[in-house]
């Protein structure tokens, strides 16, 4: 297939996934805040979100260096801000733009769905998103994105195009899951004495819920939320479709379909990623620092992305 179209298939699904994952990211933050037992400043509540999406700089560029970080402004920044290319609106727009470029490769049903989605999201985001309206909006968005997944699974030809679609989706999912796990780190790090407290319980539960993994985790680990188990589950659970291991394994299958002959750089980057997950355990990760592990993982993911661009998209 055309390199440019492969690139668009890949980005179409990355932006699709990014829109949904960004919603998860904000959702989990809102839940944390709901459970917070003490007063937190608006800035403490929302700054971590800017940090993990690496957008502090853009935020002050758009609203001024002195701009207060508050829920209203942050929700705007993350949901409807046109100047933020990772906002939900921008993600859905770029999701559709890339679908438009790859339109002769995707099914009619997929095109109509993404087209409708863009029109309805753009419409809803014309008025500012408030904290009260945020949750139903996120639920709707996530459901619609899942519907697109279903339509794709049921209408799109398997093969190279589909594999680039999967590659993009799971690349983005792995990236965002790592970042979501990192929110937890940012939020609890200042106060390690709270580990194991009631607050901690709610926070881990909220994290699992935002990753749609609450029930699955419960079934597997029964009572309690040991930090170690939760991290084990999110990083390494083979059968959980939002775990990092699952994402990386799915990417591997997609790469196999696309073919890695003469694509040493991509092959090398992928195996580095794979190795990182195989030669460790949750205990070891905790011992050397979860945040550091996640950072290293995100770097390797970036390497794989760069390799794909060089080997396939040019």
């Amino acid at each position, binding site marked *: *297939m*055309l*390199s*440019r*179209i*492969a690139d668009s298939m890949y980005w179409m699904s990355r932006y699709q996934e990014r829109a949904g994952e960004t919603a998860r990211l904000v959702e989990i933050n809102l839940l944390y805040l709901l459970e917070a037992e003490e007063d937190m400043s608006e800035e403490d509540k929302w700054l971590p979100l800017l940090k993990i999406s690496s957008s502090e700089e853009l935020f002050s560029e758009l609203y001024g260096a002195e701009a207060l970080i508050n829920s209203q402004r942050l929700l705007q920044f993350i949901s409807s801000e046109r100047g933020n290319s990772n906002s939900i609106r921008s993600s859905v*727009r770029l999701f559709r*733009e890339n679908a*438009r*470029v790859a*339109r*002769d490769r995707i099914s*009619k049903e997929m*095109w*109509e769905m993404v*087209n*409708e989605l863009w*029109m309805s999201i753009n419409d809803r985001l014309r008025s500012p998103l408030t904290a009260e309206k945020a949750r139903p909006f996120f639920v709707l968005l996530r459901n619609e994105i899942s519907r697109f997944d279903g339509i794709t699974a049921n209408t799109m030809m398997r093969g*190279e195009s589909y594999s680039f679609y999967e590659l993009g989706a799971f690349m983005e999912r792995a990236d965002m899951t790592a970042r979501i796990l990192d929110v937890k780190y940012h939020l609890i790090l200042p106060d390690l004495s709270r580990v194991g407290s009631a607050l901690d319980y709610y926070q881990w539960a909220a994290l699992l819920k935002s990753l749609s993994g609450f029930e699955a985790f419960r079934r597997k680990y029964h009572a309690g939320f040991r930090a170690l188990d939760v991290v084990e589950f999110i990083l390494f659970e083979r059968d959980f479709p939002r775990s990092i291991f699952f994402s990386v394994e799915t990417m591997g299958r997609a790469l196999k379909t*696309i*073919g890695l002959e003469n694509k040493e750089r991509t092959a090398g980057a992928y195996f580095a990623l794979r190795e990182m997950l195989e030669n460790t355990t949750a205990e070891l990760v905790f011992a050397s620092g979860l945040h550091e592990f996640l950072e290293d993982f995100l770097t390797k993911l970036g390497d794989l992305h760069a390799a794909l661009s060089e080997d*396939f998209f*040019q």
Partner: protein
Amino acid sequence: MNNHNGSSGNKPRISFHEFYDDDFTPRAHYRPLWDHIRATGQNSLEVKAHESQLALQTEGVTFTVYGESDEGIERIWPFDLIPRIITAMEWEKIESGLKQRVKALNLFLNDLYTDQKIIKDGVIPPELIYQGKDFRREIMGITPPQGIYTHISGIDLIRAEDGEYLILEDNLRTPSGVSYMIENRVIERRIMPEFFDKYRVRRVDHYPALLLDALRSLSPRGKDNAEVVVLTPGVYNSAYFEHTFLAKEMGVELAEGRDMVTINDIVYLKTTTGLQRVDVIYRRIDDDFLDPLIFRSDSTLGIAGVINAWRAGNVALVNAPGSGIADDKAVYPYVPDIIRYYLGQQPILKNVPTYQMTNQQDREYVFDNMEGMVIKAVSESGGYGMLMGPASTPQLRREFVDKVLENPRNYIAQPVVYLSRHICYMDGELEARHLDLRPFVIYGEDIQVVPGGLTRVALRKGSLVVNSSQGGGSKDTWVLSE
């Protein structure tokens, strides 16, 4: 063309009504449709109009309007429910007239780029050709396969006050609109299936198959070994919807210039598995942008080296470079002579009377009667660079006088033709609007005219401008089989 005397100067003119007779009863071929509308009532039309809007929106049948925001403004394709119906007898004349015209224009192009007999014989003044912006000296002496230049033509027809079909202009470069012709039929069939019960309407949706067949027949490696691509300027082009539509319907790659590379006069696609040879390029970009090595060097839309590959016979370009000179509006008045010269036949379809601004007598007549004239720049299209006399201000008219005097070769004038009217469903009422017709002609192994076309409607009351970029709409166009 000195037909001033006796041509209708100021007497009131009434445009032809396609739907009604002079005594306001529907014409015979519209009667079944009319009875049906009357029986179901206008409320049902309202519901149907809404349904058709939704369907076009969901399917993303759009066109892009240039300018303003960086996101580009995509508009939903405007569609009117009431079909336009052309009888089998009328169509027979249109079809034979278009075939004749396209055949002559291709002989003309081949002659211009080789022996130029028509100039030597004094039928066409040489300066008319050499001053034409779209005459491409760079390709002199090259004859494309079978001597065909315009594999796809979209010829605009209007109906004069007496109902006669006239040729308004030839579009021989990258005519667009065929996807909307097909989408209009798809929507009409879905929303108004009962309309079709009463008529035998000829099909138009096989157009992409005809096109693919014509394109494949041009492959230098043979018809069965043809890698065909549609070349688009990209997602922000106003006709991008059409480009994806055609690529998808034909099952071929939709490529941009940057997706291709020329090595040793062979064009390749850049794919995920390496380079892949291209045989036929259905290009939807203008000559100017096609090859930065030959034409505009600042073009980033084209493929460097493609003209040399074409010259070497290693790739087919559709339509062929240089075709634009044949639809230059200054050449248009000569087309009847061109038909007579190459085919020895009288033109079946007439031109609209046209004044040449290079002719002093014509020019003075036009300046004296500007309010009844349309003045057109010869190499513009899409309704740009045009003076509509009846709607113009004295200042605008003065400006046009200056422009014409500055470069007479660049302008022609035509008496305003009050385009025929048809009923349209506008906000709950059936109202008359002006319209034209663009049928599509494919010249492959033989010449075929798809029975139908794109009917464009001037949605503003009284307006004669049908271009979609300027508020035009459209109708499904039915050609009856008997």
